[in-house]
């Protein structure tokens, strides 16, 4: 993937509070350990179906969350465990969901691709590539309609950026000045297809320019740069100036899903990104700038390990949904007359 226009922040001077750095560190570590454990549990067949993990992309979730408000909405695709954890869904309820248990964040009904949390203003993981682009635009439409100050972060992959839904949404969002922040997580690939093979426009942020939408590329391997760009965008949007588009350049270390051996890319490429690992970068940054001590980081590591261990126990010990749950949540009408034969 193209790295020429990376706006990577080189300065060693830290501009964020200790609290922010530790928040990033903790969240990214929670996501990483959660995903590693999810893969392990998939191997043991405790988790079934599709499972797309977020390993490598943690800085995106971290940088977004620190830069927006809790009342803002987020919607994304199926690679979404990290986004849900960032919103504040617990490791317990997320792991239980992967196990298909009744205590899961959607009662075992959604699985890996479909976490939702109304409480955390999380409008879900969508399994249809690109479908959430107009949906996020509509969530933003409703915020404007209701006269709130909230925005909707609408996330999608580089592959989704080729769906017609993006162009229709961008156009209406600009025409109607909707409070939507579009973020494409450009991790270089849509399944086995590199960004270069899907279009002659490979600088994805330029897609916004034909709608006169403010658009920029962002280094997605560092929460600092993500935070700064999202803050800038959020300010613009909250000022009533309409949508904003960020191309966050990141990388997925694992295959597309559990079943993908990822033979379409080189080991060297994967290793080159691991050298820019967002958790390592943040850890080094914290220690070199003496933002926190090694002991403080260690304490976070211990806490996260326990949290993830506990989440597996919680998931293991939870019951599967009762078969009668099949008939709930299909209609809001309590006595809906289903066809029963």
């Amino acid at each position, binding site marked *: 993937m193209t790295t020429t226009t990376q706006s990577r922040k080189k300065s060693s001077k830290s501009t964020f509070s200790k609290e922010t750095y530790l928040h990033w560190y903790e969240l990214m570590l929670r996501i990483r350990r959660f995903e590693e454990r999810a893969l392990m549990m998939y191997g043991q067949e405790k988790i079934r179906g599709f499972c797309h993990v977020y390993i490598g992309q943690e800085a995106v979730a971290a940088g977004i969350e620190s830069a927006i408000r809790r009342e803002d909405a987020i919607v994304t695709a199926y690679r979404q465990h990290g986004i849900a954890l960032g919103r504040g869904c617990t490791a317990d309820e997320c792991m239980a969901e992967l196990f*298909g248990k009744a205590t899961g964040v959607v009662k075992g*009904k959604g*699985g890996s691709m*479909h976490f939702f949390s109304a409480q955390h203003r999380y409008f879900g993981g969508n399994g249809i590539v690109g479908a959430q682009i107009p949906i996020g635009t509509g969530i933003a439409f409703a915020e404007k309609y209701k006269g709130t100050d909230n925005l909707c972060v609408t996330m999608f992959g580089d592959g989704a950026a080729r*769906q017609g839904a993006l162009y229709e949404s961008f156009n209406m969002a600009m025409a109607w000045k909707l409070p939507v922040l579009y973020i494409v997580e450009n991790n270089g690939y849509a399944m086995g297809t590199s960004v270069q093979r899907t279009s002659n426009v490979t600088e994805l942020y330029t897609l916004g320019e034909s709608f006169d939408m403010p658009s920029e590329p962002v280094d997605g391997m560092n929460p600092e740069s993500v935070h700064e760009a999202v803050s800038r965008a959020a300010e613009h949007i909250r000022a009533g100036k309409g949508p904003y588009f960020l191309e966050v350049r990141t990388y997925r270390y694992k295959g597309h899903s559990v079943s993908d051996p990822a033979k379409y890319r080189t080991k060297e490429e994967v290793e080159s990104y691991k050298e820019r690992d967002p958790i390592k970068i943040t850890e080094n940054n914290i220690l070199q700038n003496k933002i926190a001590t090694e002991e403080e980081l260690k304490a976070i590591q211990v806490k996260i390990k326990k949290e993830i261990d506990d989440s597996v126990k919680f998931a293991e010990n939870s019951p599967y949904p*009762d078969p009668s749950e099949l008939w709930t949540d*299909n209609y809001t009408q309590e006595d809906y007359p289903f*066809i029963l034969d």
Partner: protein
Amino acid sequence: MSNRVLPLRDALREAIQEEMQRDETVFLMGEEVAEYDGAYKVSKGLLQEFGPKRVIDTPIAELGFAGIGVGAAMNGLRPIVEFMTWNFAVLAFDQIVNNAAKTLSQSAGQFRCPIVFRGPSGSAGQLAQQHSQMFESWMSNVPGLKVISCIDPADAKGLLKSAIRDNDPICFMESELMYAHTGEVPEGEYLVPIGKAVVRRAGSDVTLVTFNKMILPTLEAADLLAQEGISAEVIDLRTIRPLDHQTIVESVKKTNRIIVVDESWPFASVASEIAYEVQKYAFDYLDAPVTRVNSADTSLPYAPTLVEAYLPNAGKIVKAVKSVLYAKA
């Protein structure tokens, strides 16, 4: 002509490969079909054999590439458009329903649309609401389209070859779970006619009609019933539209009872249509109501307990058979 045992994916590939060798105008396009050999490896090796002009990776843009297929078909080519699954073909329904199906009528016969839209349909384990849907009854509702749905490798080869040669637009439905399902497949030229069902197992007490992967629990149910002395005739539709009601009606005239096992949702399903045909053309032969075993009238959630509750299975089929035989369960 000899037979070999092949998995469904290889049988499908053989059909595409042979038709591409036979006819220069046939080409394959879809997501991951070329360099990745297909999400389910159906198109493995085709890029090497036919090159990027005829085996084309598309971006994720179902509406766009389905429409490009329609235009190419109107202008003399024979596209095979692969959808990674039929769930994603929903994005392309405008082109399939409003254009592929209508071209001949709108142009008063001047333009044909010989195109095959293919991919897996139906549930595939714990894939949850958006990735588990069956589209046979949806597409069969549309005049202008033909709909094929099968998992038997020989049928798949013979029907896909017929579909590629057909001059009308065809929706061809496979199954994610069945790509490794094996069967004997004839080598070389082998055509199965569109619109003909097949009797998979002869019987006299009850007719079980089904299609796609539901043939497996249906045959399993027939085995279980045989152990109890109940003889079930099993019909595999293979083509949904046009529906081979003759084969069904003939069987019902013999057995006087029919169960339709259909993974579609019950409302306006394939089973509903068959029930109409049977009550119309075999009314006097029926000893029990036409009965169906469909998926539940709900979305399909993720948890294994809910998947189990949702899908037809051998137990549910046996129970339905006993109800039409007025036998104790």
